[in-house]
């Protein structure tokens, strides 16, 4: 719908699709990142019995703007003996890897950046860009600690993509589509149709799916937590061991880009989990627009539900960060290879069995 609207305004399909794909960036991610940084600080503060930022704006609302202004005016320090092109390119690649994912995420019934039939496949492929960016950042920082952090991060992200992919394959077996838009559309009308409760098809298989889907949800949540480098998997940016890991040497706007891409990534994976398991933009019980007879209200409501689910999962990620200690590097790998992957494989097998029968 928004595509048609833009087409009417600009008259050229290239300009329309260009603007349509830029919309999530400016209208959503940047404000979201501003909001998420503040939310993390305030939520963590309240969990620790303190108040967090209070002085800038009412109860600290404008704190992130002050942070951005500070980062903008900082000196851009580049370490001495490094490959300058890699150093400058790394934050951009990491950001591209995190942001390009948003093209395939259904924000609402009326808006999706690119309605790809390969939605999930595209998402997983593009988020692999982040690994390249991190390795470039670690290598070009000319710092032993950064290199260690970057290596660990690369190993972590690559390993944890496997459980993610296994869960995605399981979903394909149940629903038959990779397109996130169609996936969300399938889970209509009530929360009982959500995939975490077995999917929209009634029958004995639905009830058999429920424990398997809950296990799948846990697996994908944990593995995407590792992909985003959040505690308990934040070895690459561990403050007490490696100062700040692969982004130690970055200052000013480049650091801001790393920061921004981390929060964008957080929301992206939360959005994907919400779209796959929890119905995407569908509301758990009918639409207010339907009852009131205002059809134009529905896309707005859908956007609201989508954002609410995404924010809830982001909140759980923040909650986990401030509760749990950090895993050591070899334990991290052990969790992935010895726990998540076997469970994911068994799950896949069982789901396949049930689907066939």
């Amino acid at each position: 719908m928004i595509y048609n609207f833009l087409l009417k305004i600009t008259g050229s399909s290239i300009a329309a699709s260009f603007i349509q794909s830029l919309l999530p960036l400016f209208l959503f991610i940047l404000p979201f990142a501003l909001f998420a940084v503040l939310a993390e600080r305030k939520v963590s503060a309240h969990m620790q019995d303190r108040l967090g930022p209070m002085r800038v704006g009412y109860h600290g609302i404008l704190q992130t703007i002050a942070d951005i202004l500070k980062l903008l005016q900082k000196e851009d320090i580049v370490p001495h003996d490094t490959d300058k092109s890699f150093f400058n390119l790394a934050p951009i690649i990491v950001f591209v890897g995190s942001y390009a994912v948003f093209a395939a995420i259904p924000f609402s019934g009326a808006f999706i950046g690119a309605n790809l039939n390969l939605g999930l496949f595209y998402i997983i492929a593009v988020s692999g860009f982040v690994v390249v960016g991190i390795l470039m950042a670690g290598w070009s920082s000319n710092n032993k600690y950064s290199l260690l952090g970057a290596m660990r991060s690369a190993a972590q992200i690559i390993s944890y993509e496997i459980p993610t992919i296994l869960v995605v394959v399981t979903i394909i077996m149940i629903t038959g589509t990779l397109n996130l838009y169609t996936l969300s559309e399938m889970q209509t009308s009530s929360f009982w149709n959500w995939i975490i409760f077995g999917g929209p098809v009634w029958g004995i298989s639905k009830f058999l799916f429920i424990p398997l889907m809950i296990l799948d949800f846990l697996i994908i949540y944990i593995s995407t937590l590792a992909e985003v480098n959040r505690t308990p998997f934040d070895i690459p940016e561990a403050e007490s061991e490696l100062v700040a890991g692969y982004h130690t040497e970055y200052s000013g706007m480049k650091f801001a880009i790393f920061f921004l891409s981390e929060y964008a990534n957080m929301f992206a994976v939360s959005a994907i989990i919400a779209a796959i398991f929890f119905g995407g933009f569908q509301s758990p019980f009918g639409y207010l627009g339907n009852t009131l007879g205002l059809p134009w209200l529905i896309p707005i409501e859908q956007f609201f539900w989508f954002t609410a689910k995404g924010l809830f999962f982001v909140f759980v990620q923040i909650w986990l960060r401030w509760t749990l200690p950090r895993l050591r590097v070899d334990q991290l790998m052990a969790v992935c290879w010895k726990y998540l992957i076997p469970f994911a494989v068994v799950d896949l097998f069982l789901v396949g069995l049930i689907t066939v029968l």
Partner: protein
Amino acid sequence: MSLKTEELVLNMGPQHPSTHGVLRLELTLEGEIIKEVKTHIGYLHRCFEKHAEVMTYPQVIPYVDRIDYLSSMGNEFGYVITVEKLLGIEVPERVHFIRVIMAELQRIASHLVALGTYGVDIGAFTPFLFCFRDREKILSLFEMTCGARLLYNYMWVGGLSHDLHPNFVTQTKEFVKYFRPKVVELNDLLTNNQIFIDRTVNVGILPPETAINYGVSGPNLRASGVKWDIRKIEPYAVYDRFDFEIPVGKGKIGTVGDCWDRYDIRILEMEQSLRIIEQALEQLPDGDVSSAIPRRIRPPVGHAYGRVENSRGEVGYFIISNGTANPFRVKVRAPSFINLGILNELCKGHLVADIVAIIGSIDIVLGEVDR
């Protein structure tokens, strides 16, 4: 064909977020496994022992505070009973009881810092703030009594500088009641957390014989299974009148003497300190706390060694007097300095990430290591 590998020498420099102060470690690594750890200390050396030779006995007490700034009452306790041994004076009962209460409160405060910062080293940021919130209550109890929160100058030779504030007993009883559930909460959050257990169990195992050979004391020794506490072996002040246990590491999860045991011992010791405080508050006699303070402190020629059980181990003071108002020599046996000696033994064969866990579990304070 074999790969030629080189050992990497990594420097965890004096400025590092988790070396608990200005401690320099030179690690010799093979890949990520540690082969040797060399400690370089002395970045915080403040010449305490030389300084003490030009000051009078009461003037040394503020300096004694600053050796281990996180548990000053313990340091003062040791110094004061040594000088009293030299002088041969007896202090009133009330002074003994108050000293015990202060020392135990200080032990709880110091262990809270140790546990909180250990959590931060492992990556859990929230227990740190919870521990400091509880520590604030103890510090305000101290502030009410002597006016300072960290470096008290409270225990004087022959008595105390101030008597207890009238509200002290009620507020301390409230604190004891407030603190017990907080220990349970801390256990829920950190001690029994599986990730924390994975990080600390079977890491940095200290066998009891090694501990005794190196002269380790305090919670580190007790976590290795050796039941040695100066409060029971050689009771000073009135510790023989209280009923408390010495928690000993049993290897509940993992082996005896690993980092988890050292952590758990401190939590159990905090609970035992609460017991002692309760009993001391019940039995507190009346009296005058400054009646035995001598006007002039001029001990006879001789020497004395006095030791107390501080939160980090055995603090010993060896004071030689030559008959004048200034001590001839004050030697401090600092527990953290001696405990740090086991670092090389403990770290062999572990990963770099474990160093942080091991140093945090030994619980050193650089002020004591360097004096």
